[in-house]
């Protein structure tokens, strides 16, 4: 009887977490999925991992931070049995890309080229930098990124600054 009560409580908690954080999870998944079905698969995988590890969430971090951790670590393949691509896919319509590149100054053709180059350059970044950049593009603040990764906020700031410089430098060398 106690088991059923516990399961019901867990299910209720799980549902609430998913409803409250659906956009955050989808947000991370979209960067690691080439199409909708791939994104849906990853979303399901993140949900499964949340369900499996919900009991281990002790509240020592914010719930949203924990959700990002599960999503990012699932996407990066730490918990997977199969090797994941770990490739980042950007959405041209994504307004947060403005954070990395100035798209307004370019024509449509130039924008396309710029976007492709940016995506390629992001995929050449290290695993850690990829995690950071996806969180930055998801507008996650530096403090929360630090908590997701386990480094200091100032270290995150330095890394974000360096990644942006690297990307800008790379785009410059492509005459963009």
């Amino acid at each position, binding site marked *: 009887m106690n088991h059923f009560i516990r399961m019901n409580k867990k299910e209720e908690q799980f549902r609430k977490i998913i409803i409250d954080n659906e956009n955050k999870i989808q947000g991370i998944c979209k960067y690691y999925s080439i199409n909708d079905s791939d994104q849906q698969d990853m979303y399901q995988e993140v949900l499964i991992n949340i369900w499996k590890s919900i009991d281990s969430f002790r509240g020592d971090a914010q719930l949203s931070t924990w959700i990002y951790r599960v999503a990012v*670590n699932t996407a990066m393949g730490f918990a997977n049995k199969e090797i994941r691509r770990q490739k980042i896919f950007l959405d041209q319509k994504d307004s947060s890309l403005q954070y990395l590149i100035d798209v307004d100054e370019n024509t449509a053709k130039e924008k396309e080229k710029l976007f492709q180059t940016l995506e390629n350059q992001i995929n050449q970044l290290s695993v850690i930098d990829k995690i950071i950049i996806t969180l930055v593009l998801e507008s996650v603040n530096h403090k929360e990124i630090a908590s997701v990764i386990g480094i200091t906020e100032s*270290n995150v700031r330095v890394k974000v600054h360096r990644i942006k410089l690297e990307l800008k430098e790379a785009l410059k060398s492509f005459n963009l």
Partner: protein
Amino acid sequence: MKIMKKDKTNNMDLESLISELGSKDTKYKKMMKRFQIVFLIFIFLYAGLFIINPDSDLTIYDRIAGVCYVVAFTLFTMQFRLLHKKFKQVNYFDPVKKVLEEAEKRYRLWNKNQLLIGVAILCIDAASILVMFDRFNERWTLWEFILIVQLLYVLIIGIGFGFGYLRWRNESRPIWLSAKALLKELEEE
């Protein structure tokens, strides 16, 4: 640009290696459980054969050897239990840095916990001398016998370590190295 090109190759390796973490952990978890069961069976088997067995042919040396074997197998069982627990308790949803730190510890060649294995090996060594001495004491003196057994034992243990090291180098070292490299990258400002 040059730096980024160099990174590309390294990162692709790191990514594929680190993504093997989950599958390797599951594999080792199962392996540790199996070893635990095997050594548990050995404990009962050797306790039955050397300690409980009422056979009057068994000398006091055989009985002491039996105790040594049982102690050694108990230590092995404890070690595999600890390792199984370690692999079972992995939480992939801790902060990335913690996940990597734990992985780096798990996949090291040498951990101080493995001292238990060293004690177990010495116990088996002692037990082997005690068991065999009665059967060979007419051909060699005690010291000759101990020397021969030690040489053989060191050779066998050496071959065992050699195979273990090769296995570690092929299977665990890549994960250990990539975890270390990622940790180094994380710590860089």
